[in-house]
């Protein structure tokens, strides 16, 4: 009925009909689920991470937990999941079947090994199954399958580089992505090691190692398996700012292709990840929460955005925000202060209280009219009042060399 905006482009030589990929996670762990996802409109799948036959996968249930508020239960989702219980032979069969059913979609697989022979044989078998791309998990939060037990492979620069070389050597022309963890001292060092190793790109980044919660009545961690629990990998909305920083930091310093992953919940989140350097965006928590049908809004939201911005291709937005990201010390400080729109103000007094108890005591309160006003002399324009205003009636007015700029609240959709 309506014209569909063309969202297609090439990613590492692979055709993508849109930038939205189902990541290596439960939504891609069954063949029929992957089929449904692709039918719904996702541009590709990364099948859940597999391993060699000899590797036992002992899953523990319940594995999921989450945190949030009564109205927003799922700010963060945690799992103590491991890799797939399906081994490489089964996954290769699925790759072949999916490639036959969906020749224009990206059919990728994710692998994890320990020995050089494992990594290389996994890649070679997938190549034979005509996989489009192989992603290597160097960062499963529960995994101790890298070099040092209890650590993630991608937490060691040396191990990351060495294993990445093994993989790329076996992959030859097949694109390789390395999925890394944000929990490192210096993400740039890891990305540089991957660049040296010659892999095609980096998936930034995996779930964040986390302790989802402790029940204050029983002191059981969450999730609780007979009263005991382990650290989870955290995903979902709560981690998006961490992912953005990870992607931006890599993109600002290393010339390497990035697949964005971690915390995107909408088309605009995806645009953010792409604007700081991701060439596509992988999703897991969103379909695990609201299903594969979410792809429709991702596509139409992105198409509308590209129309509005006059962009022909999603590639036009990749890295476009990077030039605006600087070190704090590099920023010029305009003369700034809070600017309250009294027509929008509903008189709740949150700005007054936040400024009084948490900022500069620069907002005055007319108790009679229930109206705030700004003491421009005292207000340095820190911006806390605009964070607490429930109706976004406050913005920061910045002035520099006679030019005025307004910084408005954009924290929620």
């Amino acid at each position, binding site marked *: 009925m309506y014209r569909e905006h063309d969202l297609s482009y090439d990613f590492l030589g692979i055709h993508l009909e849109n930038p939205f990929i189902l990541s290596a996670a439960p939504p891609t762990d069954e063949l029929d689920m992957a089929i449904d996802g692709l039918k719904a409109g996702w541009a590709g799948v990364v099948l859940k991470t597999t391993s060699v036959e000899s590797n036992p996968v002992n899953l523990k249930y319940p594995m999921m937990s989450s945190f949030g508020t009564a109205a927003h239960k799922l700010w963060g989702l945690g799992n103590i999941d491991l890799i797939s219980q399906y081994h490489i032979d089964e996954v290769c069969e699925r790759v072949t079947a999916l490639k036959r059913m969906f020749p224009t979609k990206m059919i990728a697989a994710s692998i994890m090994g320990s020995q050089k022979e494992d990594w290389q044989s996994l890649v070679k078998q997938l190549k034979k199954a005509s996989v489009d791309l192989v992603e290597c998990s160097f960062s499963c939060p529960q995994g101790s399958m890298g070099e040092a037990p209890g650590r993630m492979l991608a937490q060691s620069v040396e191990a990351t580089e060495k294993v990445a070389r093994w993989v790329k050597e076996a992959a030859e022309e097949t694109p390789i992505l390395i999925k890394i963890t944000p929990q490192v001292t210096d993400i740039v060092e890891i990305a540089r090691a991957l660049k040296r190793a010659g892999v095609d790109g980096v998936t930034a980044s995996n779930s964040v190692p986390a302790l989802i919660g402790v029940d204050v009545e029983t002191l059981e961690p969450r999730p609780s398996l007979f009263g005991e629990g382990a650290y989870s990998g955290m995903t979902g909305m709560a981690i998006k700012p961490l992912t953005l920083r990870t992607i931006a930091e890599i993109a600002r310093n290393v010339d390497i292709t990035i697949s964005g992953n971690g915390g995107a919940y909408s088309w605009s989140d995806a645009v953010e990840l792409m604007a700081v350097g991701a060439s596509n965006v992988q999703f897991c928590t969103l379909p695990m929460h609201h299903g594969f049908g979410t792809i429709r809004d991702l596509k139409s939201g992105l198409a509308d955005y590209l129309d509005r911005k006059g962009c022909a291709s999603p590639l036009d937005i990749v890295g476009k925000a990077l030039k605006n990201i600087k070190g704090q010390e590099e920023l010029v400080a305009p003369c700034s202060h809070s600017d309250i729109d009294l027509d929008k103000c509903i008189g709740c007094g949150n700005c007054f*209280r936040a400024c009084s108890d948490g900022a500069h005591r620069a907002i005055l309160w007319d108790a009679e009219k*229930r109206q705030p006003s700004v003491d421009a002399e005292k207000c340095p324009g820190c911006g806390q009042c605009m964070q607490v205003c429930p109706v976004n009636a406050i913005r920061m007015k910045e002035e520099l060399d006679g030019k005025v700029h307004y910084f408005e609240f954009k924290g929620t959709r």
Partner: protein
Amino acid sequence: MEEFEKTLSRQQAAIEAERCLYCYDAPCQVKCPAHVPVPEFIQSIRSGNLHGARTILQSAHPFIETCGRICPEEAFCQSVCTRSKIDAPLRIRELHRFVTDSTDPSDRMELPEPSLGKVAIVGGGPAGLACARELRVRGFSCDVFEARQVGGVPSQEVSTHRYPREVEDREVRFLTSSFVANVRSERVTDVKPLVGDYDAVFVATGLPSESDLNVEGIGLVGVYHARDLLRKMKSGTISGAGNRVGIIGGGNVAIEVASMLREEDPTRDVTVVYRRGIKELKAFKKEIEEATTLGVTYQFLAIPDKVVGNDHVEGLEVTQAHLCGEDESGRCRFEPLPGSSFIIPLDTVVVAIGQRIDEDVFPGLVRSASGFISAAENMQTSMPGVYAGGDAVHGAQTVVEAVRDGKKAAEQIAAFVAGGK
């Protein structure tokens, strides 16, 4: 009788609490006559600290079980909720009720020795008990004189579908035990004898009697006073009303008795006969809605002229009214349409046109033009040391306003006794 309104679930309450803006100097708290710290107790719901929420409510207000159920929120807290400028006001009363229904009364009240003085409180309703609690907390001992059931109008006259017996028991038992008020089952009609025995007296009798309608036939068998019927039904006695009942009035008592008569016998026709229109009904919105749900019907714009019948009521003759502007107080005026009389066939007529204090009680206390007890801004009556508040002074009002009066009177009495010693 099952309650109309269900308590919010924990999840509903938590989601509703998240809508609160936690306004600075919150209008809801200012508007509440008892100044319940609304944002604070909602904050505690949000954090899952229900006992903390209960303590906040209980500290501000002795009748929290009652007000969580029957407070007309549209008149107080919710009418000024800032959230309504975004979408809709918080369901503050329902959150309040969620707290009282989810927790037991807190027994952590610390009471000083009652050494500061002795106060007589005439009337064991909301105003009297609120005053007694406040005085006890301040270190006074109180004797509460109550001829009827302790608890006042809510206990005696509010239908169990809005204020169930077990809730009332919990509230009144807690109130009369926690601060060790000495309840004396005596009817006081003169405060002078009390003045010598006590350091101060607080008169909070409410309005024990009912106004009469001066029309022909009012003495027929089958004509009742509304509150007599309410008390009868609330105490478990059959009302004795017939199958076609007309209720004269448009206030809360009229609507309440109409609802209870329908509850008592759902096959009986109950019609509220009111001189003005639907918009002018003085009863609270929620009570009108509940009455409608119960099947109460209305005859608006009907001025009662005469109760028709020989010995027994056979009907009510009314004249059609015409609404014509407002009087000085903003009240809607009406006038009869000549020649428009008709008879509503009824076997029972219930009069619910107002309440009063008998003229012969409390000699020596000056009355207002409306016949209520006169009290100054500081709540003192014409007699030094005798204070008055609640419906007895202001005419029929709400429980929370009676509580405000009780608290305020306690403060004034404490100052008075301290000054005299």
